[in-house]
């Protein structure tokens, strides 16, 4: 069994009236099946309101499924006593860097997770040093988070998750509020962790360029997983993606248009070099 496995996962948002009775239910996630292997870099794509953030919150047991089951490293997330274990195994990084940093000094924030887990003081320092090094933030350890750039703040947040030694990290649109430089910085840090430390990464995003190097891509629409496969398989279906209101990377789109116009290039081109090679053959 993979590190994360979902079986017929469903979740309803409930709307209550003034007396606390359920007034309305809204299906946010419907019949989702996932099977993610340890060490993979998985991307989840979807436009706004497609249910991808709701799904992400399930992976960390912040939300519990209304229907179906979700296992994180073999633990059923709906089992209350296992809650903290699940959260330790699957760390989560959110969209807004300002709203997830708790400490007033970088190193204190990184130590927040281990403190909550009851790790002894000396071991906390070891973990903090280690994860600051892994995310390249060691030189900022005494800084106030307020003085850092967006990309740096997100790296601090990632370091804070890494200090809990999770098996996988879930990033819920970590780059949505960053400038291009910050985005690059955060993505590099994440793929570094995936390659060097073997951490399973689940990246939720709507930037297509970020998922080109993923091992597997899930596309969500209306709460359901509508497409899954390698980036190449997904991006070769440009027309279907457009139906789900998603854009493909510019190079892929160019290759697709050329293909349609009769030029001999394959579908599913992901990078500029690939297109150059295909055209120069």
């Amino acid at each position: 069994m993979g590190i994360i496995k979902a079986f017929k996962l469903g979740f309803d948002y409930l709307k209550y009236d003034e007396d606390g009775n359920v007034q309305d239910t809204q299906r946010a996630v419907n019949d989702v099946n996932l099977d993610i292997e340890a060490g993979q870099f998985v991307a989840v794509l979807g436009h706004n309101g497609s249910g991808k953030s709701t799904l992400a919150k399930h992976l960390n047991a912040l939300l519990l499924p209304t229907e179906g089951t979700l296992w994180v490293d073999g633990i059923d997330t709906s089992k209350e006593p296992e809650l903290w274990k699940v959260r330790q195994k699957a760390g989560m990084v959110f969209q807004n860097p300002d709203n997830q940093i708790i400490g007033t000094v970088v190193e204190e924030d990184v130590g927040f997770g281990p403190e909550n887990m009851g790790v002894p003081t000396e071991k906390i320092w070891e973990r903090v040093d280690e994860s600051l090094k892994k995310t390249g933030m060691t030189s900022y350890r005494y800084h106030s988070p307020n003085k850092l750039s967006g990309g740096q703040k997100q790296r601090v947040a990632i370091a804070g998750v890494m200090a809990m030694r999770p098996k996988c990290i879930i990033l819920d649109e970590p780059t949505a509020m960053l400038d291009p430089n910050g985005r690059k910085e955060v993505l590099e840090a994440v793929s570094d962790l995936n390659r060097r430390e073997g951490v399973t990464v689940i990246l939720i995003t709507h930037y297509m360029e970020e998922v080109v190097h993923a091992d597997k891509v899930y596309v969500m629409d209306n709460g359901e997983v509508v497409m899954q496969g390698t980036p190449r398989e997904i991006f070769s279906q440009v027309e279907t993606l457009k139906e789900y209101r998603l854009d493909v990377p510019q190079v892929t789109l160019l290759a697709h248009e050329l293909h349609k116009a009769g030029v001999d290039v394959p579908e599913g081109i992901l990078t500029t070099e690939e297109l150059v090679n295909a055209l120069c053959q």
Partner: protein
Amino acid sequence: MIRDITIGQYYPADSVLHKMDPRAKLVGTLVFIISVFVFHTFPGYAVATIFLAAMIILSKVPVKFMFKGLKAIVMLLMITVVFNIFLTPGKVLWQWGILHVTEEGLKLAGRMAIRLTYLVIGSSLMTLTTTPNQLTDGLERLLRPLNKLHVPIHEIAMMMSIALRFIPILMEETDKIMKAQIARGADFETGNIIQKAKNMIPLLVPLFISAFRRANDLAMAMEARCYHGGDNRTQMKPLRYESRDYISYVVMWAYLGIAIVFRIVGI
């Protein structure tokens, strides 16, 4: 500009007082405040002055910072002194109409002035040498016994430190909203006080909404990182007493002893 504002009035320097454990400093300040009220004669105040002066020298904080805190209480100080001088009955030294100055009145006024001034200087000496975070940590540890009375000390301390972290963020946000509203024709400058207060509504409503949203996000982020209150929680930087803290406690108690002896002997 709004970004650079410091919270509290911490003055960074490398001194014994800065390095001292915040618990010792809190207790020390309390001892000093008590002593100011225990002393009731001028030789006693001389001892308090020497003690305070020694602490100021040890703290390496420029003296002018000590007096900054006094500005806030100047009015209060004046009123107290004036009332005490003119309204205390006793041996009349000088009289003009219904106003009379008595010997007891002068003494009482002097005493009150000294007490108030020393109280403010003493406590600003503490806030000048301790970061807000250290203060929260110190308070949390000192008040821990209240946990037995089901007072959520850890939670209160956590709230305080989160509030401190979010002050600059919310300030920046206020600045942003203000500019956005001015660009849409809002007026924060003109009108009388009531109108000005009313004009603040387009600033406060978005600010509150965004603060609630932030609080929601932060709560989720804290839960995602396994936060579940103070139980079974370890600390990255636990407070530890060192030899200088024990020495400071000895000095403190000796000083309080002197104050009590002075009181009993009646000097």
